[in-house]
């Protein structure tokens, strides 16, 4: 296996090498690295404490300060430094975006692929359950779940995952059923391949592009869903900042203090975009039939 794994390693290295040659992928990847670094180093790099209310952070009339001076991105309604809150908010939003989304993908893949590959009773039961979940208003479900559990960052991630797996599962179900009908799967069965081998070696690799695309698209939806939950008071509890709840706390003052919505909004968009760019590049590079197209 040594030689084979060597060439496997070489192949993987060259995937990274090829990714580096894509400027969009490099751009996205750098932004992700910055966001992750900011999240980890938040206490070190942020200029103030996240929930410190600064006396000089408000005008005499009590309005928040615009960007500039001691507060590079301005202050919020309570006179807290916006930059600090966005840096600390990256922690929450990345945990939600990665953990909640990752869990949602995992559940969705498991349910969708199992139902699509085995069909029959198993598939029918799983898919009817999925349909039921799809018909149920996602927000209502999230509210119910959040009301049952005690709100905390990880519980919010769990709730979001339990709401968001449905679309992934539905899409992967359809793809798996058509893949299972393909002739090379019949060929695998004819040489005696078991279910495990067919699922992991021959079906999952073909689903990877879809999983990657849904995974990257899901990051922005989950970050926003967390914001919605925070707004309803069942998300991340204040004063803990998240990009979503910064927007929702301040949205009524959008006209007077647009920076309060613009900066966290830009952070969400850039993060989602970065994951999309990296995901697209990864999808193309992992597909041997696409290699060398551009």
């Amino acid at each position: 296996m040594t030689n084979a794994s060597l060439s496997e390693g070489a192949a993987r290295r060259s995937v990274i090498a090829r990714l580096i040659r894509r400027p969009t992928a490099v751009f996205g990847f750098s932004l992700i690295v910055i966001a992750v670094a900011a999240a980890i180093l938040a206490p070190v790099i942020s200029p103030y404490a996240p929930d410190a209310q600064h006396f000089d952070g408000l005008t005499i009339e009590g309005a928040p300060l615009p960007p500039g001076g001691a507060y590079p991105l301005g202050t919020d309604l309570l006179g807290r430094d916006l930059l600090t809150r966005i840096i600390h908010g990256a922690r929450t939003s990345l945990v939600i975006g990665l953990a909640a989304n990752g869990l949602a993908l995992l559940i969705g893949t498991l349910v969708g692929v199992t139902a699509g590959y085995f069909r029959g009773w198993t598939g029918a039961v799983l898919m009817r359950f999925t349909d039921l979940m799809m018909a149920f208003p996602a927000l209502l479900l999230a509210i119910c779940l959040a009301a049952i559990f005690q709100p905390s960052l990880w519980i919010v991630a769990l709730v979001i995952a339990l709401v968001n797996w449905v679309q992934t599962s539905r899409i992967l179900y359809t793809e798996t059923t058509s893949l299972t009908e393909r002739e090379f799967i019949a060929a695998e069965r004819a040489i005696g391949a078991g279910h495990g081998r067919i699922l992991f070696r021959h079906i999952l690799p073909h689903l990877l592009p879809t999983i990657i695309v849904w995974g990257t698209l899901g990051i922005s939806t989950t970050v926003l869903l967390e914001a919605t939950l925070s707004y309803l008071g069942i998300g991340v509890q204040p004063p803990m900042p998240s990009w979503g709840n910064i927007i929702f706390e301040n949205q009524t003052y959008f006209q007077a203090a647009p920076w309060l919505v613009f900066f966290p909004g830009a952070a969400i968009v850039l993060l989602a975009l970065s994951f999309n760019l990296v995901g697209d590049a990864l999808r193309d590079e992992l597909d041997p039939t696409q290699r060398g197209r551009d």
Partner: protein
Amino acid sequence: MIAARDVAEDTDSTGAENVATVLSVEALGISVRTEAGLQPLVSDMGFALRRGETLAIAGESGSGKSITALAIMGLLPAPAVRVTGGRIRLGETDLTTLGERALQTVRGNRIAMIFQEPMTSLNPVMTIGTQLIEAIEAHDPLPRVEARTRAIAALQAVRLSEPERRLGQYPDELSGGMRQRVMIAMAIALRPDVLIADEPTTALDVTVQREVLDLLRRLQRDLGTAIILITHDMGVVAEMADRVLILRDGRIVEEAPVARLFESPRAAYTRELLNAVPRIGSGAVQTARARPTGMPVARVQDLSVAFDLRGGIFGRVTHRVHAVEGVSFEIHPGETFALVGESGSGKSTIARALVGLVPFSGSVEIAGQRLGAGRHALRAVRRAAQLIFQDPKAALDPRMRVGDLVAEPLVIHGIGTPAERRGRVANLFERVGLAPADADRFPHEFSGGQRQRICIARALALEPRLIIADESVSALDVSVQARVLDLLRGLKDDFGVAYLFISHDMAVVENIADRVAVMYLGQIVETGSRDQIFRDPRHSYTRRLIEAVPIPDPTHVRQPVDRPPSEIPSPVRRIGDPPNRRSLISVGHGHLVAE
């Protein structure tokens, strides 16, 4: 590639008939835009088509024959592919300079085209009548009633029964042969000057092909339409063409009247092509083998496969497809046993049943293991019997390296260490004529023939007792097909493997099989040695199959039979109404014929 045009030309052997030229193509060049710049697909193409003549454009895949036809129709997939030079003249108009609007009046009206796959060329949600009448009205503003009369006349001309009822039917209510007739009716309804037929019978069964070819010939005689027939089948060329263009890599290699071409081909490539064509009667003389006495590799008894169709609001089983009905045969070690039949005869279903891919009733025993006797037996059968599919592209996982694909059966059955497996894969690659270094590449990097070799290597990996080749050479070009058949023959001698060879192509079967079974509607109607079947066919269906095969010899005269479309009766039957089992009667020496 060919420096000067070393085209063997003798166009004017039929006299100076340039007067009646309807379509002429002069120095036509077509290119495709790629990242590496313009790549020529067709270059320096030129021919003249005379009124009432059939010009065959023949060549293997990628030779540029279909692209030329699309260029004449003005249907090239722009902007990627376009005409880069030359002229296409229809009468006095140069088609290459016409705009889309002007081309629309030419298409269908003066030049019509029929495609290979009639199902995809017809709109499935519109009735035959709507589509036909629409096509007529698009070019000829007639009152609806008159257009309808024209449509009925066109359907009568192509010998469709009950033309009035056909107008109200949808394409999926018709069989493949009937759909191709509808396409032809559409094409001729406006009496075009030129009819381009792009592989018009390739997707059809031989007996249906026969009918469609006869129909085309008769229509041409009646209407005087000039036909450009695009085909890869030299048998069809010999039967239909007046003149032939042989194409290779987008260039004309040879142009000749059909009789001269077959009698004394001048270009080396033409000779190669003609030599590769399998012909009935050219199979090696069969050495009288002693009937093997050993244990058969496969013993199939009373095999039946049926699929249930559900209908009605409660989804109950209302009909049943009797795909295979009471089939029995044995295959002996080192023997090639062929199953022939047309589409829907159940031959592929038998292949799938034999490796346990479809549930069946009856008994299947392979290498002493009875299928259906548990997982262990199934695994043993899947080791002893290997299946090779028709389309190697579909049968190979596109995301795996071919070396891993060939090694996979060994991994699954836990044979050898990784190093041993790699050595074995390298050997197999060499044995099937590929370089061991190719193992690191992906399936899409190979040609069709090479991919089929990869599938063969994969099938050989487990040293099986039986290889089931399901139409395994049908999708390949003739020259590639000949080489793959040679390979299969060679492997039989080296590995002592037996073949179950499934094909619709009588000529190929005659070349490779030791024993043959002819299938019709899920049952065997005749079985015997190759010589018994081909020299002394007893069943009327066997005879019809053999007679329907186009013969690559223009001197072979065949009486055209003006038959209305024959339909293969359906294997779909109501519950409680099973088909009659035919019983086979021996006519001596293992030759069995259905009553």
